[in-house]
């Protein structure tokens, strides 16, 4: 048992003998490790117990490293901005700040809805792909291939002007969310399928042996392990989804990108409107990746 005030640090040893400290953590410390990137992949053999002070030093040096890189990148960007000919004019953009805030909120809402929906679609299609019935399997396969093989732009235009019109769906927010979720869901499906296939058959055996039904075995045994495996890939896909939502501007949904473009056309200050745009998207994607990393660690069960 580990002594009080000591934290267990594990080393992940790769072929090239790179050693990345792994922290088995609790509470605030866990959050801290996440933000600073101290927690990495599951460890295997080597175990070492070090004092909390040393651990703190490691964490600090890491967060310090992050800080240095962030400052360097920002100063490069600022320097680059000064090289651009002409004067910066932020007053026009400031005047239309409401538009940015409104657009950001719309993007947030759309993304959240599409995010939940796309995970659901992905899961269902993943089950289709793994189905024994060839008809169901083919349905899933064709869905994935068509969606992945065509540009989102085309899907949005066709979805809104042809399919939604045909079924009498007029709310462009709803159509936009649906198309975005359907698009992202196809990618999710492949990710989920990979995760589900990666769970050894013996787990299913074991679940059957204790008398679980097929659904219970999926819900209690297979899914929790698969989710753990696919989390990093899913997080990446969700970040993509948020950025892809900028394409919804083509069907005149006044989300962040469209609003930034409008501000640009009102004020003629192109660069000034796109900087808040980038920051707006970062404000959505960064917390998402942080959450994903946190989830990854809380689901961790070393093998």
């Amino acid at each position, binding site marked *: 048992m580990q002594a009080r005030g000591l934290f267990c640090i594990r080393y992940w040893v790769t072929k090239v003998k790179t050693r990345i400290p792994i922290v088995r953590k609790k509470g605030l410390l866990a959050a801290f490790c996440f933000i600073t990137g101290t927690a990495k992949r599951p460890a295997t053999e080597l175990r070492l117990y070090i004092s909390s002070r040393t651990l703190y030093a490691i964490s600090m040096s890491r967060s310090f490293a992050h800080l240095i890189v962030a400052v360097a990148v920002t100063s490069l960007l600022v320097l680059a901005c000064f090289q651009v000919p002409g004067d910066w004019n932020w007053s026009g953009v400031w005047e239309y700040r409401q538009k940015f805030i409104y657009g950001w909120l719309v993007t947030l809402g759309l993304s959240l809805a599409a995010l939940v929906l796309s995970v659901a679609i992905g899961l269902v299609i993943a089950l289709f792909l793994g189905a024994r019935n060839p008809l169901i399997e083919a349905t899933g396969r064709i869905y994935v291939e068509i969606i992945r093989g065509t540009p989102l732009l085309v899907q949005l235009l066709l979805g809104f002007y042809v399919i939604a019109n045909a079924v009498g769906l007029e709310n462009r927010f709803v159509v936009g969310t649906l198309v975005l979720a359907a698009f992202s869901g196809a990618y999710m499906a492949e990710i989920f399928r990979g995760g589900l296939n990666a769970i050894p058959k*013996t787990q299913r055996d074991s679940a*059957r*042996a*204790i*008398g679980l039904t097929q659904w219970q075995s999926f819900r209690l045994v297979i899914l929790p*392990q698969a989710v753990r495996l696919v989390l990093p890939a899913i997080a990446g896909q969700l970040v993509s989804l948020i950025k892809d939502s900028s394409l919804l501007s083509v069907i005149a949904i006044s989300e962040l990108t469209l609003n930034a473009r409008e501000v640009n056309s009102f004020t003629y200050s192109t660069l000034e409107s796109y900087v808040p745009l980038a920051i707006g998207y970062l404000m959505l994607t960064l917390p998402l990746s942080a959450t994903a990393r946190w989830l990854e660690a809380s689901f961790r*069960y070393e093998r």
Partner: protein
Amino acid sequence: MRLTIKDLTQTFGTTRVLDNLSLETGSVHALVLVGPSGGGKSTLLRILAGLDTPTSGTVTFDDTVLQPDEASLRLYRRTVGTVFQSYNLFPHLSARENLILPLVHVHGLNREEAISRVEEPLRRFHLYEHASKRPAELSGGQNQRIAILRAMVVKPKRLFLDEPTSALDPEMTAEVLDMIESLKESGTDFVLVTHAMNFARRVADEIAFIGDGTALAHGPANIVFEDTENSRVATFFDQVLR
């Protein structure tokens, strides 16, 4: 238990793993299946445990015939316990959660009842202080003992153990075998596949020698081990007991 197997055949594709296997035991508490690898022991055990359905033939436990449809097999599996060679604990759950999962989700206990039910067995087999650890944090022997407990806490009619010590080193083998022996003393019936011959001889009421998909020899332990008439059996024991 009294086990009667009639003309059991299991084919996978073109391979006949079990070939018209018939076996009739007396009233036994411990039946041990031994024999060469690939001889059909594990295949037979999976059928007995209700995990697979045979191509043809019947299995009868104490006048109850195993029905081949999945629904009745699932009900059957709820009344027995199975332990695998590779433990197959659920890696995302702690040892304790592994134990209470079947109690809560299959046998309808609530969480508190389940937790108190598993406490005594955990203590008895010196696993209580490891109960909150996940399988990856436990040794192979501890994992296998948890796996045996998971099969036991539901109070099964009988237990099926498929080479429970084959993946373990000698020290851990001993702790698992001790546990199985103490289960026998407490009156649990089981069918065991094993390569631990001395243990088989000690614990078995009857031994069946399974090879080439059929029961080549069967009877009380000392008789099967001394059986030199059947050359296949004799060669096998000659090799493993050397």
